[in-house]
């Protein structure tokens, strides 16, 4: 019977299947960070349980870590980082601690070190685990009780999912990026459009994307409520994985490749839900509200809540505009942020930084704006510095920081002040997400960079930047 990519990867991980029960799936890779794991390790200790496969478990510190040179000023953050170090040592788990080579946002380091590979079942106590699906892995975000379960058993019970195909055809216009594709998709299907589904992104526009772009798209699958997002592995995938430290090598590489080529959905495979998107019709998106579906293109204006037919949506829009201090009808291009944040597991990879640096090179950040670049990992930072991007950003007036989640969720000192407005390349514009009372507008790295220069929401082409 023909199968989708999702079904193929799912089926190869079934350890136990019985009527009326969720499938018990084997976990190939368990990524761990400091925030959602301490209670799981503590519960293992209390129950006298071991970590079944420390060799399939990789830990790093990302959510809490400062992005400036130490020490860690917040004692509760330090305690959580110390707890992870102790837990990793006690249970024999590989840890990439703060500042060490290999450290970074968990969804950046997995792919970067070659841990993330096609066909794997990957879990992490973080909703943006969906990022790893860009490689054709089934990657699922889990809660702390499930982290404990995976540590103890290396398996995860999962109820069956529906499959959704989102086909993106056509060519993206200059100045549009993977971020605009996913913001456009969420705008179309809504924050719960993907609930109960694993989304497979397909079509010419997806195939044309780099791995970085595919990761950006899969990353935000959770913002549409999906359990995971996936892209079928192809030559772009294989070229990215080959030669990375934990990728198969030699004869193993050939065996892996042969296996991975069998993963794409069969031509006649059917999906429970199908959506089509015309990439050529997309424009850069900017969110105006407090959930990631509340967005318009940069050419539009802040919508009037009365324009929403659904009373719940109207009510949510009204509340969002009050929180965001925006008036209906205000052109997006007239909105003035106070802070620019380029970073997060959505957009902090080398390609994102190259795009942003290309736009700000030889220009200056607008007067009074704070602008931050936070590389996704120590390795991304080193690579960017090797290419001289740090100088370009610094000369333009950006702060060049160390690796971590930073202002995406405001658990470290990088936060918005109450009432401050950001243009952010991150993934969530929830109330207070980037700091209590902060107002977040989600954008692509290109729009964030151009906006930093112009001072109001702007595209690179408005600036006359080469694209």
């Amino acid at each position, binding site marked *: 019977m023909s199968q989708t990519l999702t079904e193929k990867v799912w089926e190869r991980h079934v*350890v*136990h299947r019985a009527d*009326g*029960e969720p499938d*018990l799936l*084997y976990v190939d890779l368990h990524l761990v960070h400091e*925030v959602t794991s301490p*209670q799981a390790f503590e*519960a293992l200790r209390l*129950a006298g349980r071991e970590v079944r496969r*420390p*060799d*399939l478990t990789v830990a790093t510190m990302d*959510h809490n870590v400062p992005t400036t040179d130490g020490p860690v000023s*917040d004692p*509760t*953050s330090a305690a*959580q980082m110390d707890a992870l170090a102790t837990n990793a040592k006690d249970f024999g*788990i*590989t840890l990439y601690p703060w500042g060490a080579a290999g450290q970074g946002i968990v969804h950046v380091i997995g792919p970067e070190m070659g*841990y993330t*590979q096609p066909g794997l079942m990957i879990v992490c106590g*973080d*909703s943006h*685990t969906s990022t790893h699906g860009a490689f054709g892995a089934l990657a699922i*975000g*889990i*809660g*702390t*009780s*499930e982290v404990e*379960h995976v540590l*103890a*058993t*290396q*398996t995860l*019970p999962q109820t069956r999912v529906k499959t959704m195909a989102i086909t993106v055809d056509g060519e993206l216009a200059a100045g549009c990026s993977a971020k605009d594709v996913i913001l456009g998709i969420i705008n179309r299907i809504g*924050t*719960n459009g993907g*609930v*109960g589904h694993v989304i497979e992104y397909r079509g010419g526009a997806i195939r044309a994307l780099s791995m970085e772009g595919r990761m950006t798209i899969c990353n935000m699958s959770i913002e549409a*409520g999906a359990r995971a997002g996936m892209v079928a592995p192809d030559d772009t995938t294989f070229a990215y994985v080959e030669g990375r430290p*934990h*990728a*198969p090598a030699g004869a193993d*590489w050939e*065996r*892996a490749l042969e296996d991975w080529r069998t993963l794409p959905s069969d031509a006649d495979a059917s999906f429970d839900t199908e959506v089509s998107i015309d990439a050529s019709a997309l424009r850069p998106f900017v969110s105006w509200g407090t959930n990631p579906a509340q967005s318009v293109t940069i050419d539009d204006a802040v919508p009037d809540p009365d324009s929403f037919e659904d009373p*719940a*949506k109207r*009510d*949510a829009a009204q509340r969002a505009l009050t929180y965001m201090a925006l008036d209906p009808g205000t052109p997006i291009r007239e909105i003035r942020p106070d802070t620019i944040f380029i970073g997060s597991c959505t957009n902090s990879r080398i390609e994102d930084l190259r795009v942003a640096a290309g736009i700000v090179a030889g220009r200056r950040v607008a007067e009074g704006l704070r602008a931050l670049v936070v590389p996704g990992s120590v390795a991304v930072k080193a690579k960017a510095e090797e290419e001289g991007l740090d100088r370009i950003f610094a000369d333009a007036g950006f702060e060049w920081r160390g690796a971590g989640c930073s202002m995406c969720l*405001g*658990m470290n000192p990088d936060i918005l002040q109450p009432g401050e407005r950001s243009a952010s390349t991150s993934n*969530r514009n*929830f*109330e*207070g*997400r980037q700091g*209590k009372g902060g107002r977040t507008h989600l954008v692509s790295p290109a729009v964030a960079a151009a906006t930093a220069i112009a001072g109001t929401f702007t595209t690179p082409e408005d600036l006359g930047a080469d694209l």
Partner: protein
Amino acid sequence: MEAVRRVEGTAVPLDRSDVDTDQIVPAQFLKRIERTGFGPFLFHEWRKDPDFVLNDERYAGATILLAGANFGSGSSREHAPWALEDHGFRAVIAPSFADIFRNNCCKIGLLPVELPEESVRALMDAVLDDPATTIVVDLEALSVTAPSVQESFEFDDFRRWCLLEGYDDIDLTMRHVDEIGAFETRRPSWLPTA
């Protein structure tokens, strides 16, 4: 986990859709390394508004939360159900839930009950009208009962069984430990290790 069969109590009407886990418990409170004590941080920012429904004395002591669609979206933080539970809630009734949030609730015995939009609306109207209205959620009978509402709901069979019996997930899985071991011997040797 303690078995959960039935929740009976008054309810708070939180008439908002897309309530995300950053609202339920903001990130700055996720730094505790303990599993308990998150109740005081529940809806931390919204609670600063004296008119926020959770500050309304008439709803004090409620054990059921009524909410709009897509409740619990966003982050996977289990701290969100921990905070709801620590505050005293035993069930959340909404037209729909985010997947990870629903999972996390079931792990700690906080019942996520999905009812049609009109029924949630009717329950909200009933408790707005009379905050002393008692609602009964019966997991065994799969029913929600209030003076003006009688509705059945669906619940995953396996999760329901686990909750009714109070089973520990890890113990359940360890019944299959031999199958896990056998699976491990079949895994290709080239798969990544730490």
